[in-house]
């Protein structure tokens, strides 16, 4: 069959048809996947939250608030986990910028008294096989159950109580830094709240 000739009209029409169908179907697919995407995003958060705080039955991914961090300009996000309206824990989305690959984002689960429940790594650019060992048992199991009020969140080299990952002191340090930051914000938040109550 002969090809369509390249007159201006033909072209315009073709293009219009192509773009219209394309955009139409795109919009359609978007509508289809929209919820699934949102779901996946929320899922990600929830899964993480679930891992760091004790059992809850509210929807912490919707029940959150933001507070300014110690460093001006940055904010820290708090997710509150409640079991039947009792606050059972806070999942604090904290960070440190001093990691080997720059930014390290953690989700630290605190019990209401400030004890660390569990920690999940949200985002990092550490070296595979090295800094990434922070997700492994050996390192991460040091934190749950400790309360930063008593536990010095510093690596041993810096006179703290954390055993650093071998050859990844930088990552370990950043990790501690992030947890400490989360803890400080939590304390600040609790103080102001208390202050507000009084």
């Amino acid at each position: 069959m002969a090809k369509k000739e390249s007159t201006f009209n033909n072209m315009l029409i073709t293009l219009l048809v192509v773009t219209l169908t394309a955009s139409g179907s795109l919009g359609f697919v978007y509508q289809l996947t929209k919820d699934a995407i949102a779901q996946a995003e929320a899922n990600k958060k929830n899964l993480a939250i679930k891992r760091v705080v004790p059992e809850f039955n509210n929807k912490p991914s919707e029940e959150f608030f933001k507070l300014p961090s110690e460093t001006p300009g940055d904010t820290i996000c708090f997710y509150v986990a409640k079991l039947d309206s009792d606050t059972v824990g806070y999942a604090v989305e904290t960070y440190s910028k001093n990691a080997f690959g720059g930014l390290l984002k953690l989700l630290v689960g605190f019990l209401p008294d400030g004890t660390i429940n569990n920690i999940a790594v949200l985002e990092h650019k550490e070296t595979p096989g090295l800094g990434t060992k922070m997700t492994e048992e050996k390192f991460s199991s040091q934190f749950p159950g400790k309360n930063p009020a008593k536990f010095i969140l510093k690596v041993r080299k810096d006179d703290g109580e954390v055993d650093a990952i071998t050859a990844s002191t930088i990552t370990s340090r950043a990790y501690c830094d992030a947890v400490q930051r989360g803890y400080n914000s939590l304390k600040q938040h609790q103080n102001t709240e208390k202050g507000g109550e009084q």
Partner: protein
Amino acid sequence: MELILLIIGTVFVNNIVLSQFLGICPFIGVSGRVNTSVGMSAAVAFVMVLATIVTYIIQLLLDKLGIAFMQTVTYILVIAALVQMVEIILKKVSPALYSALGIFLPLITTNCAILGVAILVYQKEFTLLPAVVYAFSNALGFGLALITFSGIREQLELANIPNGVKGVPIAFIVAGILAMAFMGFANIV
């Protein structure tokens, strides 16, 4: 100050070619002539900044309409058209200039890098000025890698490279060692 650190970080630490793997094709394909590489880098700098501004504005529009998912389609169309438009305009505005470029430079086809940077700008949630600085630094990083590389290649032309690795493989291996050397800048900013 932050912008300067952004530049250093983008050029040296997260070099677009050596660590982010964008624009590899022109990097490998462009001739071993150092002169041409310099010209290419300048061209890329302009186009990249131009594209970044335009896509930034478009993204504002897309966001406003709530159709951010249309990003890919719109960006690529706009970028493809922009690159061509620059040439048309140049040709219309000054044919002589255009011809001189034609002899001097290969055509600019770094869509991969340009599109990549445009999307990264969006992902990193830059505001316009840092976005443009970022784009520019990426072009700078591209130029740095390209020019160093073309120098090495020019020299390798005179060396007796074993047959098996001649051509593309040796280019990758050199890039690999360069990338290794650039790892030294890790965490410098």
